[in-house]
């Protein structure tokens, strides 16, 4: 009987901005390719008995800040469990939702919302929106890789003492003034990369599943995925980045 991988998808209806369900499709497809049974559980404000430790991977997509208080109230009792979760298990948090897991969300009307404090960062809502490509290198599960994606920046991320998830090659990243992209805490990834990040970067998806395999005591799958299409996509998007006009501060000058 096939081993089951359990995926927890946090607040898919509340947080649904940028085609984020692509990440669930990608993780599911890679799990199925390796012969596992993959079950996806949608967790919403009415979910009873939520326990992060029931899952092998948790994904929290980006959402509108207007819903943050309700979500934080829901997650607060699970703070400790989420901290334990990311010590060894993979979690992906994207876009604005980074703020939920940080210390504080500062809104542009001068109000603020206390976050879960799972990662040592604070976010500051911007008055303007900035959208662009995002390209960086990072290391996950011991392997180096390049990530390509998009960023719709609605807030600055000040990562305090936390390690960044990536080092920018191009893009706005956390503040537009540093070389940092996102944050990493344990096996938790907190990134500004939106949309189907795991579709566009299957090498990260593979590492997430590799980590799940290790956590579950399964042999790591040897047969590599054919990533030709995604590598071609990376190449052509890098070509766009290299030729386009930008008003960002050069990475080398940050």
């Amino acid at each position: 009987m096939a081993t089951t991988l359990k995926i927890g998808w946090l607040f898919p209806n509340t947080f649904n901005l940028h085609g984020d369900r692509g990440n669930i499709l990608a993780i599911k497809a890679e799990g199925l390719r390796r012969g596992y049974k993959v079950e996806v559980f949608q967790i919403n404000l009415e979910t009873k008995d939520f326990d992060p430790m029931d899952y092998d991977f948790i994904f929290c997509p980006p959402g509108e800040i207007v819903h943050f208080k309700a979500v934080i109230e829901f997650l607060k009792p699970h703070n400790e469990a989420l901290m334990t979760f990311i010590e060894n298990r993979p979690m992906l948090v994207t876009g604005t939702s980074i703020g939920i897991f940080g210390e504080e969300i500062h809104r542009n009307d001068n109000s603020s919302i206390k976050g879960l404090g799972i990662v040592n960062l604070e976010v500051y809502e911007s008055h303007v929106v900035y959208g662009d490509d995002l390209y960086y290198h990072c290391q996950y599960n011991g392997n180096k890789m390049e990530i390509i994606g998009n960023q719709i920046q609605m807030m600055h991320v000040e990562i305090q003492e936390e390690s960044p998830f990536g080092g920018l090659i191009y893009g706005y990243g956390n503040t537009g003034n540093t070389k940092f992209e996102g944050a990493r805490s344990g096996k938790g990834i907190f990134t500004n990369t939106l949309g189907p990040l795991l579709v566009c970067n299957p090498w990260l998806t593979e590492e997430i599943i590799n980590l799940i395999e290790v956590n579950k005591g399964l042999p790591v799958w040897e047969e590599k995925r054919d990533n030709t299409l995604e590598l071609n996509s990376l190449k052509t998007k890098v070509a766009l980045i290299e030729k386009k006009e930008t008003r960002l501060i050069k990475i080398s000058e940050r």
Partner: protein
Amino acid sequence: MKFYFALWLAKILGVAINLVSRDRGTNLPGEKALAIDPSFVKHFKNIDYSKVIFITGTNGKSSTTNLVDHILKENGKKIISNIEGANLLSGIATILAKESTLTGKLKADYFVFETDERYLPLVYAQLPAENMLITNLQKDQVQRNGDPDFIYRKLKEVINPQMTLILNNEEPRSRSFEESSLRSVYYGVERHDESFNKGIDYPTQACLKCHHDMVFDYYNVDSIGAFHCDFCGYASETIPEYQVNDINFKEKTFKLKGVDYNMPYDLPFMFYNYAGALAICQEICDISPQKAAKAFNNFKNIGGRFEVLKYKDKTIKYMRIKQENPDTLQSALNIMAFDKQEKMVALGLYTLVDFIPHYANTFYAFDCDFKPLIDSKVERYLCFSEHVSYDTANRLIYEGVDKEDITIMDSDNIKEIFAEIDKAETNNIYLITWISTFEKMKKFIEGGQN
């Protein structure tokens, strides 16, 4: 005095631009006038704000404005409107300057303005309309607008209890503005043959009132349909006051308030525009549905999203979508899916080039359900357009399309696109691309390559 200089300059510029080209300059005179007098729009005389109607929202504002303008004119009303679609403050300034006397006096029965939702507070500050129709607030132009709540807050700045609101009954964000106004009128569309549901892994949205999950019983257009929240009870009305019903796609007719109408465009997103326009005409302008009905016989929408080209023995059906807007892409996918004939689909999602920086965003495609299209006899897919063709193809692959059935072309080369179309056995070609590529394709055909 500043106002008069600004007005006369705008008039002169308007005439000059009109001499060069009738299609140009809908913003420039207003821009220059506002540079001289920043409160230019505020200084026009004889505007009764109870006769001013703003039509705003993500999708459908141009078509609704065009239709209201048409119905009112057909009923003998004098209308000042921005039907050319210049929907920022400068566009409205241009129109007012054009229509006013040399001393800034205006004479019209109604002022009907499509207004950009993002810049609504700026327009309202100078032109405090007492009537507003909100079509819908959806995910759109994320590079500018971020998320729908960003725009929702912009509208909140403006809406006040004195306003009459005409609200889309079946779009939760728009409908929720009812809390901010003393008078709200609702319009909607009955479930019809092209209403649809999406799979359980397609997210809906959070309730505006309690943050819990919203349930859509069905969609008439993506993200718009009968909805309810099980937690707090927020819901669309079963039958709104102005409801397009008895939609007959074959006969191209519908009903509203018991009156029969010819349906100039049988596209589901247009039904909401019909209902909204009829609500405005009756509620604000006292034109009854009976009187409005005859105007539907000769309505031509300006800048519609659907065009048909003849190429050799093939018919190319072009659908213009709005980038970063899953709802217009879903509408296009549904149209293709409802066509059960063999077809080729040429999908040219494209790099965003609205302003600097340009970027390669196709992520909104993952919000759309491709399954019905894939199940509708597609002979072959062509994914084209530089920098995003691989991602577009990947979207199809994740929906179950075999890689072998997709041609990927990392280019916008017109000849190469036509060469692929030539290879198709079917004559039934659907095309999605941006207007610039489409115009080039049109010229290619007109240039004798047919």
